[in-house]
């Protein structure tokens, strides 16, 4: 009963209206930060992952171990490291990135990288080695070989990208620390959810969680569509 009273009480409605009006920029910023981080991680991670699978380097096992360990890195630890780096008293303080989306993108790129590299590597390793030989025999350059193998492994590669996106769009530890959850500037969906929870607005926090889930659904749908387009 009291719950219902609260839901229909004026302050709650006002608060919800207020929250709804500030929702579009929050959603856009979430997409912007995680989207750019995903692009950066993909651009860096795909060639690295494929390269590691196609041409093992000295110390390969150790590197792989590091990458797998990186998949389990808590976002808040990455956030802390990025904070120390970007702090005015840190080595990269001159960039003035702390508490800006740039800092959040940096942190999320680092979180996403091991996922992209590791899963791409696994996907490429599963491709029949005969294909590589065949393509090479046809006179393909190393880049073309990599392209062919990645194409063959596209389902796994897409899974790598989707997993990385899921990891960063939903993380809160790093963006809270290096972004600061500043209203209208660095507040994203996950930090807004923490804020509403802290203030006791559980219903609103849950609703925001629903928005986040919807966003992830649509993004993944588009990513998979893109993957299928690329596969044709």
């Amino acid at each position: 009963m009291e719950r219902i009273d609260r839901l229909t009480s004026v302050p709650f409605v006002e608060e919800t209206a207020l929250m709804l009006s500030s929702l579009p920029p929050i959603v856009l910023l979430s997409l912007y930060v995680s989207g750019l981080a995903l692009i950066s991680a993909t651009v860096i991670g795909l060639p690295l992952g494929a390269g590691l699978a196609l041409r093992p380097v000295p110390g390969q096992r150790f590197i792989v171990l590091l990458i797998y360990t990186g998949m389990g890195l808590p976002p808040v630890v990455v956030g802390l490291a990025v904070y120390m780096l970007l702090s005015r008293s840190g080595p990269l303080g001159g960039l003035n990135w702390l508490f800006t989306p740039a800092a959040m993108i940096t942190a999320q790129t680092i979180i996403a990288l091991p996922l992209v590299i590791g899963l791409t590597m696994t996907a490429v390793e599963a491709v029949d080695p005969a294909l590589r030989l065949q393509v090479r025999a046809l006179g393909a350059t190393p880049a073309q070989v990599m392209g062919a193998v990645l194409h063959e492994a596209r389902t796994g590669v897409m899974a790598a990208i989707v997993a990385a996106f899921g990891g960063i769009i939903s993380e809160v530890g790093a963006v809270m620390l290096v972004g600061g959850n500043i209203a209208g500037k660095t507040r994203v969906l996950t930090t807004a959810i923490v804020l509403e929870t802290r203030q006791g607005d559980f219903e609103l926090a849950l609703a925001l969680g629903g928005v986040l889930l919807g966003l992830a659904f649509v993004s993944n749908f588009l990513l998979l569509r893109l993957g299928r387009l690329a596969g044709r």
Partner: protein
Amino acid sequence: MRRLGYTVSSALIALALLLSACGQSAASPTATSAPQTLRLATTTSTDDSGLLDAILPDFEAKYNAKVDVVAVGTGQALELGSKGDADVVLVHSRKAEDQFVADGHAKERFDVMYNDFIVVGPKEDPARIAGMTTAKDAFKAIMDAQATFASRGDKSGTNTKELSLWASLNITPTAEMKWYNALGQGMGETLTFANEQEAYTLSDRGTYLAQKDNLPDVVILVGGNSLEENKDKSLLNPYGVMAVDPDKHPGVNFDLATKFVEWITSVEEQQKIFDYGKDKFGQPLFYPSSAAWKAAHP
């Protein structure tokens, strides 16, 4: 094969363009004559109470500034200041603030306002503390009854105050005390815990009042219904403001930070602090206490 490369790269470029367009609209909602930015590190209590939303627009309009509020625990807020990552800090932990000045991170600390702490707990009140005059007595009774107690456990100003109360009883809470729960969370979460677990806790009055509707089983047991009724003066909770020293941290916006300190301690703004919350809670959430205010209201 080539087609894959083209499709993926063109799609990525299109996505990047789209996102950077989104980002621009998201990052700069108002693009007027480039306001200066002031970074304020403060506690969750000032932000969650809604006070900052109510008073900061005045400052932003007056000085064509944009205030970025980073609301964290007192410990983290001071840490941000001591690394030069905030221009001004507004917190409530007197000892830590004095240390901040002593360490040279700020030249001076100024009184801004105060509110008070209260001891809240379950209606059933198993430790029978309702009506006690001091928090110290109440804490003693809670311990004697081994009644469930929720602590912020996050080095916040409230947590520091709570630990000093235990220390006055010569007690250092440890994990062995089954009735004592150090949560490591904010005031809101701690009050929610108290409500669910029928636990006692120390809360600032503002956060309790703001969340009262969500806390049907938690009542005020020590501290009365308003700050005036609070008989335990050791429960007063003063807030101080400090501009981070540019000699130590050259990157800070000292000019604007100084203006902020002057502004928030001015009689006019202090009155606004005093008025905030009266309509909603029937009492102020914060009581002004700057030197200028005291001079004007002896």
